[in-house]
């Protein structure tokens, strides 16, 4: 059964299109990740789905409720986790939960019982009485997630739920979230391939357009050509970058926090060449062969990480 239907949605704020001809269907119980860099239109799409904004053209329905003509009906089915935390820094964690619980029409006993369970699971129980102003970023993310889970809505729209967290904290938060939302329909925005891997289906969004959609393994197989080398070096080098581009398939190269990801036909041969050339340039590099990631697939799908 279709939970979310997006038909030919376009969005502009006056200058250029933020979203262009978006068509998307999400089935009941499906976990869909929308992947793309900042500015690709992910948050705008999430806002439209969450009935916070209206599309300039096209229509969206949530469980059959049109998000414009029956926005109230649509809102009954969904829970939205915006990128901003929407928390009050002067209230404690529990008071923030109580505030949103009351807005959702839950009774105090019910809110407290659910909150205790969720706080325990997310490791925030002992911090529940602290003012949110004293929370770390990770704790705020967890609290916002708890608040999104509180009303137990069948559809969850999560806009970058793990943004700004270190890889370990991201993994922890997402696995806790996954455990809790089993059976729900989830649309999650992310710019991190590793986060999108946990979804059943991934949509690549680039400059407001859907460029590809499929299961994570399908997307990797369909788009990544050849093998992947991660060339790590302490300081970035324009000369090496030029060399790597000349070696890489289709001149595609992805800059990482540690160096570059290079796409090659024959990994052994390419590793040898990179090693020799970098030695000639006086650069000390380490070359690691890695499995293709969703981000690699994205790079191929859009012709570069925009």
């Amino acid at each position, binding site marked *: 059964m279709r939970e979310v239907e997006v038909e030919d949605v376009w969005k502009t*704020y006056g200058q250029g299109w933020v979203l262009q001809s978006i068509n998307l269907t999400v089935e009941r119980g499906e976990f869909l990740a929308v992947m793309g860099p900042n500015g690709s239109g992910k948050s705008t799409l999430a*806002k439209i789905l*969450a*009935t*916070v*904004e*209206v599309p*300039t053209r096209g229509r969206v329905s949530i469980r059959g409720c049109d998000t414009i003509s029956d926005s*109230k009906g649509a*809102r*009954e089915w*969904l*829970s*939205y986790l*915006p*990128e*901003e*935390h*929407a*928390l*009050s820094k*002067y*209230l404690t964690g529990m*008071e923030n939960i*109580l*505030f*949103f619980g*009351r*807005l*959702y*029409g839950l009774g105090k006993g019910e809110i407290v019982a659910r909150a205790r369970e969720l706080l325990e699971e997310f490791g925030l129980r002992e911090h529940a009485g602290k*003012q949110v102003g004293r929370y770390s970023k990770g704790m705020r993310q967890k609290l916002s997630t708890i608040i999104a889970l509180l009303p137990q809505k069948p559809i969850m*729209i999560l806009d970058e739920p793990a943004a700004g967290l270190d890889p370990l904290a991201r993994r922890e938060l997402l696995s806790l979230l996954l455990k809790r939302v089993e059976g729900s329909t989830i649309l999650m925005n992310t710019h991190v391939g590793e986060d999108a891997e946990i979804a059943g289906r991934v949509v690549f969004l680039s400059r407001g357009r859907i460029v590809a959609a499929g299961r994570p393994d399908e997307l990797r197989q369909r788009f990544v050509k050849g093998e992947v080398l991660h060339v790590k070096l302490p300081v970035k080098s324009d000369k090496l970058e030029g060399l790597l581009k000349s070696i890489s398939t289709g001149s595609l190269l992805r800059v990482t926090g540690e160096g570059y990801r290079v796409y090659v036909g024959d990994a052994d041969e390419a590793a040898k060449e990179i090693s020799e050339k970098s030695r000639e340039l006086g650069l000390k590099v380490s070359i690691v062969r890695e499995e293709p990631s969703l981000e690699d697939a994205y790079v191929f799908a859009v012709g570069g990480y925009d």
Partner: protein
Amino acid sequence: MIREAEAFTIRQFMEQVRSPANLFWTVVWPIFWLLLGFYIFLAGIPEAGVAYARGSMTIQMVAFGLATLGMVSLAGSIAADREGGLYLKLSSMPISASGEMLGRLLGSLIFGLMAAAAITAIGVGLGSKFEAGLSDAVKAAPFFITLLLSAAGIGLTIANLVKRANAVTGIGVTLLVAGSAVSGIFTPYPFLPETLKTFSRLYPVSSSMHVIKRILLPSEFNTMRYGFDPLESHYIAYAIMASIATLAVGLIIHSAARIRRARTL
């Protein structure tokens, strides 16, 4: 609407109680001026009139505290919530928008009355006197509310016309201080030049204050020659209508901003 109003009343009240900046500007700062006034500005006043002069200053500082609450604290809290994404979240929830505003106003009102009680208690403790009994205090109470509501109307307008939270607070403080300085909240009305006297009678915040003063300190209006009687029915009607109109403008701007945010085309 009831559940939204309840949630926002609690939230607004708790935020105001726990915000050090709010406590400072709405309670500590007026008390500081009360002390400064009592022991420096009113130092030369004859003994017989000091207690009532202190009473008058106490009312002025209560008015200043309530005006701060509406024009700065409420405005700042709305702007901070907007920046923090609260309105995005609320727009995705099946709730009534009017409950939010009612709750914010009720939360501010409860805090405001407590702040007013604290300032008055300090004033009375330090020798302020009023020429009023309990029934007069009851008569004056609605005008503390209209004073706060008119300040809240100005606060809502600033919060929704100015984008950044920091700028909202800055503009709120500027208008508050400037308005208080020229409307008789800082300087007693009889000492204002004629033009400012007119402004003071018309400014919604000070018009409610004049009515309060007239109820709680009737002799001040005789001895200091105010030149008008705030208890005349047309002035009372004006003070109430001006507050309601100012609040209504603020509410309309706030609602329009919410609708614009929620339905950006």
